[in-house]
């Protein structure tokens, strides 16, 4: 049977989107590999870096301990973390924006970041650990993870009510976020300046804390929940037409919404508790992706993931190469902001509505 004109047009359009996404994916992988080579350390030439990576891939260890430590133990997980965190935050953002039908939503909309920060503050200011592990860093991470899930749990609990709309859900999220932030600030009033500083630094998003022994758990969580979200995305797309029409088309809106919220919260909490709040990524990457592929989640989710990974890896390269160790969260804001504004003005006449 011959394809109709409309169908062939659609196929063409679809394959163009696919090509863009795949191309960007390959570029990001390449960049992330390339970012390992950006080392501000005398003696570590690209040749040696290459040697170290090859040695490790063959199962050996490089004989200069410090070189080995920096490249294999610090920079390689860091490059992977950029890809994972960028993709995870962006997918969370894309889903959240569609789910809440609001261009301002991001993975932190339900209060994940404020919960995490509160958890970190409990540990840093008061020394309270939910599961005491003996290691300070580990306590902070575990606290942050568990407390960042509380706001979402509250949202999920109220989202089952019939009178709840996406708007009220976001507003409830913001209200809970205010409570957590205020509680953190109350502790700050009496805390010592040094601990205020360390909490502040914890909050600024950074990927430099990535190591082999924490990267695997983040990777597994983010991959699993991204796959879960992708499986739900056709239903969420239907839900953009309003809850009632979605129900009449056989979508169980409550279940889909709760499942999405939980998956997003889970992966975001995992990312945040290891990297701190990398702001802006979850908001911007989906919008940039939207400029290229439109708002259908089937294309938007993969495209956002790739965009997120690409942006974060670029920002981290800037952070590593051009500055003296500024956290990547600062770079995403200060450089990503203006670029985003230019994109918005130039390309996005009908990005959202």
């Amino acid at each position, binding site marked *: 049977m011959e394809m109709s004109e409309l169908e062939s047009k659609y196929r063409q359009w679809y394959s163009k989107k696919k090509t863009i996404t795949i191309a960007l994916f390959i570029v990001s992988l390449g960049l992330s590999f390339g970012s390992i080579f950006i080392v501000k350390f005398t003696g570590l030439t690209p040749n040696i870096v290459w040697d170290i990576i090859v040695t490790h891939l063959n199962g050996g260890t490089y004989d200069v301990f410090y070189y080995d430590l920096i490249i294999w133990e610090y920079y390689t997980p860091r490059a992977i973390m950029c890809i994972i965190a960028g993709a995870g935050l962006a997918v969370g953002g894309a889903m959240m924006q569609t789910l809440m039908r609001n261009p301002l939503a991001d993975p932190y909309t339900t209060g994940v970041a404020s919960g995490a920060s509160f958890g970190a503050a409990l540990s840093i200011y008061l020394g309270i650990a939910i599961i005491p592990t003996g290691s300070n860093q580990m306590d902070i991470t575990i606290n942050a993870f568990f407390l960042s899930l509380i706001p979402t749990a509250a949202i999920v609990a109220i989202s089952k009510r019939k009178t709840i*709309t996406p708007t*009220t859900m976001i507003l409830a999220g913001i209200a809970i976020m205010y*409570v957590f932030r205020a509680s953190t*600030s109350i502790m700050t*009033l009496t805390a010592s*300046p040094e601990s205020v500083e360390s909490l*502040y630094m914890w909050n600024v998003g950074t990927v430099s804390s990535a190591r082999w022994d924490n990267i695997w758990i983040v990777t597994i969580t983010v991959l699993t929940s991204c796959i879960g979200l992708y499986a739900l995305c056709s239903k969420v797309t239907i839900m953009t037409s309003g809850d009632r029409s979605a129900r009449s088309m056989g979508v169980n809106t409550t279940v889909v919404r709760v499942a999405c919220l939980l998956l997003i919260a889970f992966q975001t909490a995992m990312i945040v508790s290891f990297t701190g709040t990398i702001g802006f990524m979850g908001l911007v990457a989906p919008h940039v992706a939207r400029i290229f592929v439109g708002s259908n989640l089937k294309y938007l989710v993969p495209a956002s993931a790739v965009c997120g990974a690409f942006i974060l890896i670029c920002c981290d390269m800037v952070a590593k190469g051009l500055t003296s160790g500024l956290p990547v969260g600062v770079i995403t*804001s200060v450089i990503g902001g203006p670029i985003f504004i230019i994109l918005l003005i130039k390309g996005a006449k009908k990005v959202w509505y």
Partner: protein
Amino acid sequence: MVSDLEMEYRAYTFRKLIIIFVFLIGIFIAAGISLSINGMDIGFWDCYNYVWNHIIGTEYELRTPEWRADYMLWNIRLPRIIMAIIVGIGLASCGVAMQSLMSNPLADPYTVGISDGACFGAVSAIVMGFTLTTALSSMGVVISAFIGGLIPAIIIIILSRIVNLTPATAILVGIALSYIFSGMETVVMTSTDADTLKAAYLWQIGTLNGATWEKCLIPAIITAVCSAFLLFSSKNLNLLVLGDESAKSLGLNVDQFRFLCMIVVSVTVAALVSYVGIIGFVGLIIPHVIRMIVGANTKFLIPASMLGGALFLLVADLISRTVVYPDELRVGLVASIIGSPIFLYIILKKKQRYGEVF
């Protein structure tokens, strides 16, 4: 003859007026209680008596108990109450205006990046060595915060004149700007020592502590102008909610009106933030709560939100002063902590679906 419909409309208007009146009484009572917690056993009515006597020009003999009471109430308690009322009015009405201008229920007075700009300004001033202790240097922080707060607003206003920004895009640009400024703020913060960092961090949490008549003056004038403007343009704000196209077809010059509103709102918010820091909750949540009570007609929504904001901030300030007396919490924190549960409760109790059509 008055038709049934007209009667009904009058009754409807009357109900809204009653609500507004209730808010006024609430403010009077809250202010009175706030005055009467003074550590000198001066009762509710006596406090108002002192204030009235001061206004009509009664003089007391130096260092008598009456003189001391008058001095305390007039110079220490009252400016703080007035400041709470001013800030409440300003933030809540700007919140309503912003939500209508941007046609987005998540918009608040800080949406276009004013708060982060102001923080950046204040933090840079503090890090550069201005302190909050002396009058001159505290003025330096205020001015720097004000300028910082206006920068993102000016960028947005100029951009919206050059290219045709839709409200949704304008908000996104605003968020991008606020991220840029908070990023730069982080750069400044990380470059300083721990003590300065804490001082700068605390500046951001809103407080009404240390309000004086001099400090009230500028916010009062700006807020008064802003409120008058918003009250008179409430009809136009109503039209904006219908969408730009419909508003245009009804004869409103949308671009010009939005431009004007943005200027008024930005200047007001920047001025308030630079004096009291960032008080979050009021500008976003109070308009929503009031909208649930009186409906979305801006003609009633704006005055009711103003009074509601003022009342809420007065009560929050009252609690922040008394709960750990003689120490005090900061009003921004109390506003969040008492406001959020109330707001959640209202959302959950609400019978109709709210926000389906904004």
